[in-house]
């Protein structure tokens, strides 16, 4: 295999994986923007998306497309329930409380998934009927990768339309910019928080559904996806959606190239090292917020 086709192969791999990290990071962003919370249960939404889809299509024989939307709907509902059950009842929670609460929610969802689906690993059939890889010289591309990229792009467009052209989306952005001001002009901030959880659950579910055919799915997938997704969000600048997508591809490529040209042993550590590196080099946060401005708030 020539060097070039090896490289191309790693790029294919990195792009597919990176798209997923990008989508998990989008989920982080949506909640962070509306609430300032980092939802550590984000990875569980991805897992649930995949699992619900598996039950619907292979268990209940629901057609793929219908199953897709029902699954996203169910996980969206779960996201909303988490907000109502765990975040909403808190009055003036400290950051510490919020961290622990979302960690607890993530364990609870994981445990619930284990209870429902057991500990087995499941798979989904590929979206396209032909599973034949597409050849580019010696390198080859899995058709599912094209689905992943396509659906990710579609989700991005839907999100962009939602945030820029609908009243609710604009209200959510207002919340992100200034909560107090938003509430003064009549935006229901509490409702926006609920919506942000629902929306980010939906994004997570979409990610979960599209990766299951290639990556399989089990109840215990969430944590690692959440950590890598967070690393992506931070690298891209927490809150920036375009940044999340670009950072997703960067981390995905770093992983596949690292595993390919250096060693596969420490592949999982790459995203984590990127996270630490970024956090440590710019301790005030990536958005350019400094300690001073934090104090001002």
């Amino acid at each position: 295999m020539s060097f070039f086709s090896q490289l191309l192969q790693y790029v294919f791999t990195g792009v597919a994986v990176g798209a997923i990290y990008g989508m998990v990071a989008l989920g982080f962003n949506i909640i962070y923007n509306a609430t300032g919370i980092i939802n550590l249960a984000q990875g569980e939404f991805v897992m649930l998306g995949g699992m619900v889809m598996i039950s619907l299509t292979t268990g209940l024989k629901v057609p793929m497309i219908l199953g897709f939307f029902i699954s996203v709907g169910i996980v969206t509902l779960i996201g909303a329930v988490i907000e109502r059950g765990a975040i909403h009842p808190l009055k003036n929670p400290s950051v510490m409380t919020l961290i622990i609460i979302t960690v607890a929610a993530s364990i609870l969802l994981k445990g619930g998934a284990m209870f429902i689906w057991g500990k087995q690993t499941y798979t989904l059939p590929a979206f396209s009927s032909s599973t034949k890889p597409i050849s580019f010289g010696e390198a080859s591309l899995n058709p599912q990768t094209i689905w992943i990229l396509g659906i990710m792009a579609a989700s991005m467009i839907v999100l962009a339309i939602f945030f820029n052209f609908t009243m609710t989306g604009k209200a959510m952005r207002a919340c992100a910019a200034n909560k107090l001001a938003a509430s003064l002009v009549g935006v229901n901030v509490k409702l926006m928080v609920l919506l942000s959880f629902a929306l980010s659950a939906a994004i997570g579910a979409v990610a979960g559904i599209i990766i299951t055919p290639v990556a399989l799915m089990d109840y215990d997938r969430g944590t690692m996806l959440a950590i890598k997704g967070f690393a992506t969000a931070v690298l891209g600048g927490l809150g920036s959606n375009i940044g999340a997508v670009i950072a997703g591809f960067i981390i995905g490529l770093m992983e596949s190239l690292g595993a390919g040209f250096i060693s596969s042993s420490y592949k999982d550590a790459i995203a984590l090292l990127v996270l630490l590196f970024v956090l440590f080099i710019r301790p005030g946060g990536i958005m350019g917020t400094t300690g001073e401005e934090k104090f001002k708030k």
Partner: protein
Amino acid sequence: MVGVRKNRLRVVGIFIFVMAFILGQGVIFQGFAAKKPYKIGGIFAITGGASFLGEPEKNTARMIEEMVNARGGIYGHPLKLIIEDTAGDETKAVNAVKKLIYRDHVLAIIGPSRSGTTMAVIPIVEKKGVLLVSCAAAEAIVSPVKKWVFKTPQKDSDAVRRIYEYMNKKGISRIAIITGTTGFGDQGRKKLKELAPDYGITIVADETYSPKDTDMTAQLTRIKATDAQAVVNWSIVPAQSIVPKNMRQLKMNIPLFQSHGFGNIKYVELAGEAAEGIIFPAGRLLAVDTLPDTNPQKDVLSFYKEEYEKRFKESVSTFGGHAWDALWLVVNALEETGPRPEAMRENIEYTKEFVGTGGIFNFSPEDHSGLTKEAFEMLTVKGGKFVVLGED
């Protein structure tokens, strides 16, 4: 305000009630213990990452308990199985073994499921002198020989030998290995590298993947770039099913060998069409249907398979078979010697020609494993099923 407080109180109340109930239960169970049962302990990784081992082991052990008691126990004494979960964790295993020994006073223990947990509990059973028949594979468990410790799974090194013998026959001498980073994968990797020179085999690529890995194309691309004539994928976790999928995607047409850790039909389902043609060594349980009637294990295997699948509505795996062998060894010893631990230990140590699911066991004071490489059969996947590869 008052409403909130009431709610809080109710939550606390419920919590206390539940706790009291749980604590109370422990007492009740002890109080109603049956008359003079023979107590055997079982510790398996029923939850956690290794639950695919512990679950069938637990089921199998329960099944044997029922069978024994249905035929009137052991000379009238009911067999009482006390099963504990290790979650694959050493700390929990240590606690569980101590509970079995010091609180439940069991006569013998079968399990644990994992090599790590077995190694962690060995000092405890050796010190107290309690018979332990492990369901874990690592050779370190019985080598050097420990007085009170036996094991039923086949040896990793024998699996490697069978693969290498087969490769020699097919003229394969340059191979790539890709192993999972779990205890099982790691042991396999060591044995693969250790035994390769004996068979004139060169390992040209050595890759790993974590149990949570979702994509191995990067590792496989590296392998593709070498001149390997075959790939050995050694792992016990579901992630191993991604390797054949990715190989297909990369259009790698060299043969794929896997380990006995592939011996679970679910893994074939996960890999789908890509699983076709995978070659791996395993106990004969998996391919019992395609086994000739003359095979001495055939009866035991079909009986176990039938009973298990009838009861638990899921396909049988070799892992449950390890518990089958372990518990029957203990039950047989109990029947022959009575509830005397030292005698039971000696009985097992001198057991010969015991036909189990894993093979035909011949124990001796020098060998607490009892199996040879003949316990393995080379199998392959055909039409989504395990079949005996045969000598072609």
